[in-house]
């Protein structure tokens, strides 16, 4: 695990160096070429991290991020990992494949036998996933992993397309996308058999369609992503704020007629685009829910949605609320504490929607990061939900490379400080509950600090002007 982090740090240093250097200051308007690159890796090679001459590194980086190299290379590496994982599963005691992949495969097997996928204990996903993975039984066990790595590379491609639409040059966009495509974390997650890449592709697809104003496709993908996992439902508010009719009244009026302004605000939500989006997304979601409810009944609703909403996992996880929920699991305060834990999440999501809705990608990134950090249960799989949106945010950050890497190391350090006592609890039998609790609080503080740094250093493309009254 620690080797993976050092490797990721190295990779990020290689690419982020050129990215930060190129994007610092006004390369965001379309058609403008980025300034000539003056050895972007000058800042990226502190002693000990890069072992090749700078010119060689520079050539390697630009070679690697050429269009016909980057995407095939990232797919090839993931494919190699899948085959290596298969080899490790067959020969070593410690398995490469994640337990979730076996859960999906077992559920798919139940479907091929004509039964409900929920016969498989701990299968808590949409039946659509088990249906998608039925070729695991008919063709080969490795089909699901191939599907996941294809979605992973597709996510990288979608990131590249969104960045191009947001005004970056093709080369810079590719370099930023390589932060996802050549990142060992999503590589490892997809090749181990986690289905997070499907959702990443759906969310990024929604954002791409919104950016390109293809509302029907955006609504379709959004409905599908909410069906697969609940958390994208938090994007509904910033999407609604983006699609509503923009205000055109002059400011003088508003001070006198505050209640009229409120009514106008509510009225701005009633427009054709928002109605179209809501009906398509709602229609897709309701149709899928109705179909699977007809096929599998109450169990589908409970395992796919209700379980996640009322989930009270008292076993140790990254959440700051873990120990509190464990100690109060059977007390009469349990429901109130659950509500108290939900309030900061709600307040912050509302604030993030309102403050940043004009930049949808940034708003969604903040939403997801806040949702995961303040959630009652937090496992490392959840980090991918906002990491796939981070490359969209990075081009507009005015952080220096040192600051960026420092924040990244801080994030890893926070995880490491939690993982230590957690290992001793689970595998050595020491009572480290207090340490785990404190490490969870520290991780929350670190996450908030990083988010504050990102918010403070985020520079939107243009300062939006208030349209004056006619």
């Amino acid at each position, binding site marked *: 695990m620690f080797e993976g982090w050092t490797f990721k740090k190295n990779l990020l240093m290689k690419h982020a160096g050129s990215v930060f250097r190129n994007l610092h200051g006004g390369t965001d308007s379309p058609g403008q070429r980025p300034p000539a690159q003056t050895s972007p890796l000058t800042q990226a090679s502190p002693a000990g991290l890069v072992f090749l001459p700078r010119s060689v590194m520079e050539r390697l980086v630009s070679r690697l991020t050429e269009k016909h190299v980057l995407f095939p290379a990232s797919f090839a590496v993931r494919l190699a990992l899948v085959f290596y994982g298969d080899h490790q599963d067959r020969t070593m005691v410690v398995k490469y494949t994640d337990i979730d992949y076996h859960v999906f495969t077992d559920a798919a097997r139940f479907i091929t036998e004509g039964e409900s996928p929920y016969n498989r*204990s701990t299968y808590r996903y949409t039946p659509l996933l088990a249906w998608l993975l039925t070729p695991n039984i008919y063709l080969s066990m490795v089909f699901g992993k191939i599907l996941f790595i294809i979605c992973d590379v597709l996510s990288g491609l979608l990131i590249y397309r969104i960045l191009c639409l947001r005004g970056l040059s093709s080369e810079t966009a590719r370099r930023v996308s390589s932060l996802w495509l050549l990142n060992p974390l999503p590589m490892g997650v997809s090749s181990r058999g986690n289905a997070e890449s499907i959702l990443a592709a759906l969310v990024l697809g929604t954002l791409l369609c919104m950016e390109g104003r293809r509302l029907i496709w955006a609504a379709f993908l959004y409905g599908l992503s909410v069906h697969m996992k609940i958390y994208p439902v938090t994007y509904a508010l910033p999407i609604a704020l983006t699609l509503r009719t923009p205000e055109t009244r002059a400011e003088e009026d508003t001070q006198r007629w505050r209640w009229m302004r409120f009514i106008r605000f509510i009225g701005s939500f009633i427009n054709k685009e928002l109605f179209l989006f809501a009906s398509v997304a709602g229609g897709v979601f309701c149709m899928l829910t109705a179909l699977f409810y007809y096929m599998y009944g109450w169990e589908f609703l409970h395992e796919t949605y209700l379980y996640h909403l009322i989930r009270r996992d008292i076993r140790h996880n990254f959440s700051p609320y873990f120990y*509190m929920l464990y*100690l109060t699991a059977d007390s009469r305060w349990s429901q109130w504490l659950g509500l108290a834990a939900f309030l900061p999440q709600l307040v*912050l999501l509302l604030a993030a929607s309102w403050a940043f809705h004009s*930049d949808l990608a940034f708003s969604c990134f903040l939403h997801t990061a806040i949702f995961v950090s303040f959630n009652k249960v937090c496992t490392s799989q959840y980090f991918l939900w906002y990491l796939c949106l981070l490359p969209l945010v990075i081009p507009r950050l005015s952080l220096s490379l040192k600051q960026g890497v420092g924040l990244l190391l801080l994030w890893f350090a926070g995880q490491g400080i939690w993982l230590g006592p957690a290992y001793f609890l689970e595998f050595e*039998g020491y*009572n480290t509950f207090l340490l785990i609790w404190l490490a969870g609080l520290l991780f929350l*503080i670190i996450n908030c600090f990083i988010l504050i740094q990102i*918010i403070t250093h985020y520079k939107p493309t243009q300062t*939006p002007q208030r349209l004056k009254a006619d």
Partner: protein
Amino acid sequence: MYFILYIICIATCHCLIEKDEKNENHCGLLKQWLGSSSVSVEISKKGFHREVITTVELSPNVLSGVRVLLVYTWPRGVYIDPYQLASMRDQSDWQILIDSAIDLEVPAHKTSGFVSYVYPSPDGPTPRLLKVTIPIHGRYHEPSSDGELFTSVDIQPPELLLRTEKCLQFNNLEPHTVVDAPCTVNNSSMCPWVKIQSQQEHGPMSLQFPVGDRFLMIPVCGGTLLVTMICCVALSKYMWKHKII
């Protein structure tokens, strides 16, 4: 013709008597043999994931056609992962039958114990020395109210059951008793098995699992809510300050 009938009668009776004698021999051997079988249990690994290693030593004069069954009565503080066992099936030479569905995530005080039947070497002859390693996992327990950092879970050694096709008269086998148990792992029928009363009574083995401290409930709740509120206020403040409207 009567003479031929007479010969046939004598031959049949002779066979039956021989068979009875053989049976008696087998059953006699069985009783001798039962007394010299022994079971020992050892628990390895630490933390929430342990291994229960059971070693069964059968008498040196092995009767052919003997089947062994180990019956484990597990407390509610631990569980076995049936999916993990299914993936281990290729590498292990024993099979297990569990008497009830196991919830993998529920805490100890909200569930009950269960019984598992382990059939070592189900296909093929039973060797003299058997070793069965079962991975078990500890459940989360209720937080302690008396400041104790650990809770104890007692694992009883398994019951050793034996059965042979060659002796079906289970009388006169004291101190061993006869019980009914599933014949094979398929659980399609029940058979009589002889439960071995071991000479050395092994006591239960005690496992220690960490538990939370209910005494800290108020400071933990207070501390958690305080930190989350402060983080919430700080984030909101910066978001409002740097909003893009």
